[in-house]
């Protein structure tokens, strides 16, 4: 009985993690940036959806759309205001730019977190789910919302896969992640590729955020743990490997769910963290890492 519960719950949570981590991995793979404001962008999307429902009294579909739009916009602001200027500045030595981008995105994330806490308080917020009701899977009473979450996550990942592997533009993006110089030599403007990638990331973050809001809810305190779990997953899977991130997301998701059910919800993040530590000691490149 518990086994099926774990299976179902774990799958939903893992799918959510997978979506978020995919975006994070994509940005690192193509743009070389570890965006430490990742969690903040997700929370911003959720809070926007919640505010739309709460203050503007729109329906769940409209609320979700607004949430995704806000997440998208915030992500692009992150790129144009913070990441791009730092990548192009002459005031910092090349070797130190990565550090500055890490610090700046971290700061930016904290700023967003504080702003949200200020305007909307740091209480937990949930978003009205699009799908309601409960069905029974393997004898487990499951909210249909959970299934919806998993389905949407996989749809999004599927669309992304199609985009990257089947369209010309998508293949250019994939190629850019392997060899930016090679892509330039073939007449593709890297600056366009970067904008495209951040835009895709923005949509993924928006969707992941809104789904999380419908499923579990967030508060401004969620910002840190969300970023932490995304980069833990991406490091575990191997920096630069999107498929690695997908696998790692499920490992982490299930580890957390199993721990929560069998040991205690308070300890849920520990095993994944221990696994991460072990992997970093033994093989810092992660499971499938390239860089």
């Amino acid at each position, binding site marked *: 009985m518990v086994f099926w519960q774990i299976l179902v719950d774990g799958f939903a949570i893992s799918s959510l993690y997978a979506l978020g981590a995919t975006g994070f991995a994509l940005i690192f793979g193509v743009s070389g940036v570890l965006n430490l404001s990742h969690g903040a962008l997700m929370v911003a999307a959720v809070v926007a959806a919640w505010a739309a429902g709460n203050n503007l009294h729109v329906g769940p579909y409209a609320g979700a759309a607004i949430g995704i739009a806000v997440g998208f916009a915030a992500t692009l602001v992150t790129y144009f205001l913070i990441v791009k200027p730092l990548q192009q500045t002459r005031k910092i030595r090349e070797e130190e730019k990565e550090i500055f981008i890490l610090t700046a995105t971290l700061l930016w994330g904290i700023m967003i977190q504080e702003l949200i806490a200020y305007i909307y308080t740091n209480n937990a917020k949930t978003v009205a789910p699009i799908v309601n009701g409960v069905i029974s899977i393997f004898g487990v009473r499951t909210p249909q919302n959970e299934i919806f979450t998993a389905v949407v996550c996989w749809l999004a990942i599927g669309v992304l896969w199609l985009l990257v592997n089947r369209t010309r533009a998508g*293949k250019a993006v994939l190629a850019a992640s392997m*060899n930016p110089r*090679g892509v*330039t*030599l073939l007449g*593709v*403007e890297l600056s366009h590729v970067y904008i495209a990638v951040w835009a895709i990331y923005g949509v993924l973050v928006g969707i992941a955020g809104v789904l999380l809001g419908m499923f579990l809810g967030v508060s401004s305190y969620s910002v840190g743990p969300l970023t932490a779990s995304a980069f833990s997953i991406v490091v575990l899977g191997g920096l630069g490997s999107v498929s690695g991130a997908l696998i790692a997301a499920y490992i982490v998701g299930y580890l957390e769910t199993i721990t929560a059910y069998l040991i205690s919800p308070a300890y849920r993040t520990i095993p994944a963290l221990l696994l991460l530590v072990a992997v970093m000691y033994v093989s810092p490149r992660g499971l499938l890492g390239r860089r």
Partner: protein
Amino acid sequence: MNISVSTTASTTESAHLEAHLQVTGLTKRFGGLVAVKDMALSVQAGKILGLIGPNGSGKSTVMKLIMGIERPNAGSVRINGVEVAGWPSHKIARMGAGIVFQHSRPLHRQTVLENIKLALLPDKLTRLFADPHIDDHARAIAARVGLTPVLDRRPGTLPFADLRKIEIAKAIARDPKVLLIDEPFAGLTATETEAFSELICELRDDGRAILLVDHNVKSVSRLVDRVLAMYVGERIAEGSAEEVMRDETVRRVYLGGSMETAARPESSFSDRSTPFLEVDNVSVFYGKAQALEKVSIHVHAGEFVSIVGLNGAGKTTLFNAISGFLPYAGDIRRQGGSLRGRTAATIARNGIVQCPEGRELFVDMTVRENLDLGGQHLPPAESAAQIAWLFELFPILNARQKQAAGTLSGGEQQMLTIARALMMKPKLLILDEPTLGLAPVILEQISKALEKLRQTTDITVLLGEQNVTFALPHADRVYVLEHARIVWEGEPAKFAAGGGTAYL
């Protein structure tokens, strides 16, 4: 507080420095690539051995292996009879080895004096106070190399030659029994080269064993006692400088033998007054080093021009300037219109396509996918037709369509690089050292493909090569690029007589 007494390398103590470097069976693999194969050399105290070879021959790797910066897969390195192969570099350094790197690497936030003092410090954690002797000693070394006027300045403010002097000063400070010097004269003027040569001779006379790496035999022939020539990781000749320069294999590798050329006279090209590509007085600086100095070349539409030059001469810099990857002084024009300000991707889309030295393939993608990416600006039907044509030109690519590019052999990768560039239907194809590291048999195939290209299309080609056997047969005109300058221009047939002397 200890007072360490450093043994200065004064002539009275040269009996102390019985230096001896002996290398046997040294081998290094990087993945599938064998960079150094079964290398053997020995240098006695008070002697200089010149290690020469073209780019990719493995000479820098040999130095790194001796110094412990890379670990050998097999072989022995003995310094003064002590086996040091596989030791970490700091232990080898303390054993009496020193290295002067090809590219200056001072500490940018420290003064010249502090940079030299660093080299004099012992490897201890407990030194909180500076030893007064060290200061005097550092100043003495600075005086020896001529750095006294700039002791309190930071490297960022100094000219190129001074940076090289800092490197030598650091090496002297270590008082090594065995000294490895990597390309000491690159970027120096004639007078500066003189001064450095004298310094190196002095160091030799101190009784040290010196291994000197360079790609040009002539520039080191006065200095060295013996020369060892390398090619593709192996030794091909050893002897006095004259013996090596006369050696058959060496001459073939550097100069090519007698050969057929198929040059068309310059007057036969239609765009006489405004050549397709004009490089006009272009200069490029990498930090302090001048990589190109007022270089001017031109290429007519449909012409095949080869730029011959050894490693470090500036070919890649020139090509990168043309392709828009580097800032430069001067002007580069395509059909009369300046390319300044265009992005690299724009220049490529408009028909100037480069096959770089590093190939830059998408290694995890298949051959077919790499080609498709090359053709992404074309409508699908045209792209498919182009691929079909390329499969005729390079049949092996057809056979390996579905293989990941990273799993191809070196020669196949090179063919893929050229094919991918051709997918863009370039007006001007730039090839940067396509033959690097490839076996002669593969060179044949690529050579044939280039021949076919030249005969069946009106493509313009700019080829940069140090392999003369490859560069001359297809060329209509040849330039020789040496140490950032164009030193010769003319027909391929006249090369061996005219440009060749500058070359070897």
